[in-house]
């Protein structure tokens, strides 16, 4: 099939640094400082979401109430992306707009869980006790606020996007594959217009628990992603990013502004062993062709042991003189949203004239490797 050019015509981003293209362009230019909360989830530092005026993107309080924070953040960022693409009021476009969301889910009611676990300790009939408590204490709507695909469902309801949606799961790689698939669909002519992205709420102990089980969390003070050798691990951050990807023809036909061209997008899964992340990323970047010396390198690296150094080495080999920026140093690690946020940052930098070309890399804390190449539109 003929490969068509894919451009980014809409960017919606919200994080600890605030919302929108300008706020993040300024942070990219200044290189920080990040907003870090070291107290609320001690000993785990994280980057809390800046206060958002939810009403601006989710006008109905009833809609806001039906969502958990990660869904609200995603719906909010998706709305920003539609605004920036000039599609918010284009019913025809929204009817055709296909959506891919990278999502986690399962936000727990921490108080209910704690009370049930406490009660289970002394329960004579633990199974029956659990049933009774869950039947009475779970909010019926909580399930929907937790379901992975309901971020996409809420985008449909709140923004009137009635095109079909797909939800990818699987931590960081879900974000990589979401953009890869959206890019491939447009490049191959299967689609003209896609909304793709993800959202992550870091301010929840249930997710910290999942990462801490595997020993993946950094503790105490903030340290830059590539300077955590002595205490490797994630510092998570609340962040959401959605991109409107569009065929260059369609964008030109409607006179849309392109933030950047997404020229290449690749994903792989190395069978993790020492060195596999470096070789996987090197191979992906190599398949994109040469990288200009003054390029920007945005890294979605996690800060986790071994793989972060391997990613740095792959970037250094592919683009030795590129200016390297770790997304984690600006907004923290956004898991499913980490790669979409990183691609958004790259597109923002290109549209702000901070560079002419950018590569984006990422290696999931546990599995999956991805890379993208963007050029000025």
């Amino acid at each position, binding site marked *: 099939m003929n490969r068509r050019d894919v451009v980014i015509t809409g960017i919606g981003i919200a994080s600890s640094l605030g919302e929108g293209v300008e706020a993040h362009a300024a942070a990219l230019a200044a290189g920080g400082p990040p907003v870090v909360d070291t107290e609320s989830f001690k000993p785990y530092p994280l980057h809390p979401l800046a206060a958002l005026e939810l009403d601006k993107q989710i006008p109905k309080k009833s809609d806001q109430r039906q969502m958990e924070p990660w869904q609200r953040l995603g719906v909010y960022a998706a709305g920003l992306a539609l605004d920036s693409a000039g599609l918010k009021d284009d019913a025809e476009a929204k009817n055709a707009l296909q959506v891919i969301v990278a999502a986690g889910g399962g936000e727990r009611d921490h108080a209910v869980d704690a009370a049930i676990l406490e009660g289970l300790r002394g329960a004579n009939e633990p199974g029956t006790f659990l049933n009774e408590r869950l039947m009475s204490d779970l909010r019926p709507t909580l399930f929907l606020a937790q379901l992975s695909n309901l971020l996409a469902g809420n985008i449909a309801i709140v923004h009137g996007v009635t095109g079909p949606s797909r939800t990818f799961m*699987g931590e960081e790689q879900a974000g990589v594959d979401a953009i890869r698939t959206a890019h491939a669909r447009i490049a191959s002519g299967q689609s003209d217009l896609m909304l793709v992205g993800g959202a992550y709420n870091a301010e929840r102990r249930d997710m910290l628990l999942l990462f801490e089980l595997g020993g993946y969390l950094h503790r105490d003070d903030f340290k830059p992603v590539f300077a955590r050798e002595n205490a490797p691990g994630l510092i998570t951050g609340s962040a959401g990013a959605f991109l409107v990807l569009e065929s260059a023809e369609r964008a030109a036909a409607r006179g849309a502004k392109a933030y950047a061209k997404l020229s290449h997008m690749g994903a792989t899964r190395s069978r993790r062993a020492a060195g596999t992340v470096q070789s996987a990323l090197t191979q992906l970047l190599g398949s994109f062709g040469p990288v200009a010396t003054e390029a920007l390198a945005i890294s979605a690296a996690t800060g986790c042991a071994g793989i972060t150094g391997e990613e740095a080495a792959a970037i250094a080999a592919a683009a030795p003189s590129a200016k390297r920026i770790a997304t984690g140093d600006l907004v923290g690690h956004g898991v499913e949203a980490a790669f979409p946020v990183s691609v958004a940052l790259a597109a923002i930098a290109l549209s702000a004239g901070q560079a002419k070309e950018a590569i984006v890399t990422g290696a999931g804390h546990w599995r999956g490797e991805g890379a993208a190449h963007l050029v000025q539109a």
Partner: protein
Amino acid sequence: MTTHRDTKGRPLVAVTGLGVVTSLGQGKETNWQALTAGKSGIHRIDRFPTEGLKTSIGGTVDFLFDGPFTAPQLSEKLATLAAEEAVGQSGIGSAGDFPGELFMAVPPVEMEWPQKQEMAQAVSGEVDYDGLLRAAATGKYRAMHELFVFGGVADHIADRFGTKGSPISLSTACSSGATAIQMGVEAIRRGDTQAALCIGTDGSIHAEALIRFSLLSALSTQNDLPESAAKPFSKNRDGFVMGEGAGALVLEDYDHALARGATILGIVAGCGERGDGFHRTRSSPDGKPAILAMQDALADAGLTPDDVDYINAHGTSTPENDKMEAMSCAAVFGERMASLPISSNKSMIGHTLTAAGAVEAVISFMTIANGTIPPTINYVNPDPAIALDVVPNTARKAKVRTVISNSFGFGGQNTCLVLMAPPEAA
């Protein structure tokens, strides 16, 4: 070499391997025997205590583990068995070296109560999440991380079967299994891959999962006669019955399959999907998204409604779905709906949720191959408002070349597949 293309000039997508596990048993043969005998796999749940629950029945798969297990472990086991059957039948690649990509519909996972309880035992003082975090920090529960990451099941399947590229774990709620197939079709049409392993799996019936659906009043509460609780299109239908299972399909570029001498079992001719912004759990009352999804699937296949021989219904047995689906089918097929057979596999195996679209696609291809339509069982009290030929209670011999398989889910997910017999002249 001749290349075969569909009416739109794209590669034809062949099916060369099928595998299935449900509460009726493991494998195509066992399932086909039971399905055509009108047998139900629904029974009283004994996996966990059901005291105090409104629903105590389900189509759980209870024959795979001796001891306790988690939802991701059962989902992975189900997927493995279905995929082994499908890959084995296709004869593609070699053991541990599947020459194509993996698309998997997997249930969203999260840490389960037994694991939380295990950690809680190590917590002194109040058992809150800070306590659990302290327990986790000991490193004693490291294996739970891999168990409960969302990408875990697909990662293990990718390892076992040696699929290529980055495996996709996806959810479109109750249409997930169909979406996995659709993504495989699209990847083959793009030329990204010549083969795809598409799996839908769901082994997530545990207390909290059941209670969540129960709190939404989505489940049948007719516990007394479990095998007759799932009664799609009946007047007294009162909700769906949760089921477990997995379906796996090996999809392949038709010419790739021909070149290696594979037996072509059928064609995935078209896919249609539509969103619905009406409500989080309810479908648009006018059925428009479902109608458009079916029409899109037919258009994608280059067919018209008259070409369809049989509808494999979503048919959940909820009051709302069955009404909406019947109305949507009437809109698409017009007067033909009075005589066009439509049956629901869920009357026998329950709603296998994430797996349903894949399980029912496998059954649809068996329907085509065997010239027999599995019935909608428990159809003793027809709903006069939705007059349909549901193939009531007894399987029916019929020449079936083209099936449309419907899947509709929470969150406005509507996915329809057009599945066809192999082309007569290759």
